[in-house]
């Protein structure tokens, strides 16, 4: 196997959240007090796990469980996974999970007094194609309360997990929805200092993705760390 030994670029300051963000209370006892030790990227960081669809079967329609439709507003989410140079990240696995339309996770730890939907499990897995494009169908997740502070509510969001080409490109993030008034009150969303970086977490409504009579469409591109430019590329 050919290994690309070009290191990944450092993340840009303020475009990522810190470990300690006291407004998000759970960070207080879980954030390290010592700064991380900077190390050069070796084969362990430059390469990553390789997932294949036969071993990790895709599930691209969360809105359908055993042939039955979930309750809620059916949506299509599509976009591309790119690196910081705009190059597509092909054949890469994406994991997805979310609350149901009422704002309840099909999880024993979720005690929110909102109904479960027997036709919604809330998890899926897709792979990008050769152009880095992905697509899945689901229902719009509901907002839900959480115990972080008085009257705290999470904005509507879908959790997204990506691997990319190296251990250094591992990313878990959340996709938000445009126009959500809870975003400006959410300490998780607000923890990223750079406003543009925050706003890139908000999907765009897309009438071109929307299917007549069936589902609203949203577009959400995801960018993974790029590699340092080689002299050849300059």
């Amino acid at each position, binding site marked *: 196997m050919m290994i690309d*030994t070009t290191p*990944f670029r450092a993340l*840009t300051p303020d*475009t*990522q*959240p810190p*470990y300690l963000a006291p407004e*998000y*209370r*759970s*960070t*207080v*006892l*879980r*954030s*390290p*007090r*010592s*700064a*991380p*030790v900077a*190390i*050069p*990227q*070796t084969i*362990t*960081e430059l*390469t*990553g*796990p*390789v*997932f294949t669809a036969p*071993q990790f079967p895709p599930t691209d329609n969360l809105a359908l469980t055993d042939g039955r439709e979930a309750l809620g507003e059916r949506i299509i989410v599509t976009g591309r996974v790119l690196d*910081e*140079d705009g190059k597509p990240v092909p054949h890469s696995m994406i*994991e*997805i*999970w979310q*609350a149901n339309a009422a704002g309840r*996770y*099909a*999880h024993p*730890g979720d005690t929110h007094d909102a109904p479960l939907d027997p036709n919604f*499990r809330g*998890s899926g897995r897709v792979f990008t194609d050769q152009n880095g494009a992905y697509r899945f169908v689901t229902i719009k997740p509901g907002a839900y309360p959480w115990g972080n502070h008085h009257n705290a509510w999470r904005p509507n969001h879908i*959790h997204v*997990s990506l691997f990319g080409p190296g251990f250094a490109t*591992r990313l*878990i*993030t*959340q996709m938000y929805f445009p126009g959500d008034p809870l975003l400006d009150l959410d300490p998780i*969303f607000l923890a*990223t200092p750079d406003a543009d*970086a*925050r706003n*890139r*977490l908000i999907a765009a409504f897309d009438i071109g993705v929307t299917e007549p009579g069936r589902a609203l469409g949203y577009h959400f591109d*995801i960018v*993974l760390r*790029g590699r340092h430019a080689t002299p050849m590329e300059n």
Partner: protein
Amino acid sequence: MFATASQTIGPFWHLIDDPAWFDLTRFGAEGERIAIEGRMTDGAAAGVTDAAIELFQTSPARSASFPGYGRTATGSDGTFRFVTIRPEPLSGPAGARGNALQAPHCGIAIFARGLLKPLFTRVYFAGEALNETDPILALIDPPSRRPTLIARQIAPARYHLDISLQGDAETVFLEF
């Protein structure tokens, strides 16, 4: 373009959890099977009960029978366990620091409620002579913190590594 901002995995990530993933050998890998187990604690020394721990290794070489990746959920007491194949020494970082061989190790990524982005660390194995000259361990100063990355052997082919997110025995986390 800038890399997308990380967000927390949250407390309900188990919706994507497949308990079988703790076993990196499950696709029929060949080699010496070892167990890596431990407990994750927070700054109050309480068990971290809702974390995802990921293990990644490039030795043995990745193949259909060994993707080199596993993930497990911490339990109700913060404990975790992986089964994998013992890694071999690996080539070191390129460049000015030379090509000193890396001691056998696996990469670790930690995700949890309260972590807005992953914590990265490594697991090395007690008793490996190369630990003394490993070019990554050598970067950890003071050296007294290096053992936080070295799993102790508790039985044949069975290793234990505690992970402390915060506090006096805080694990050394890595940035790359």
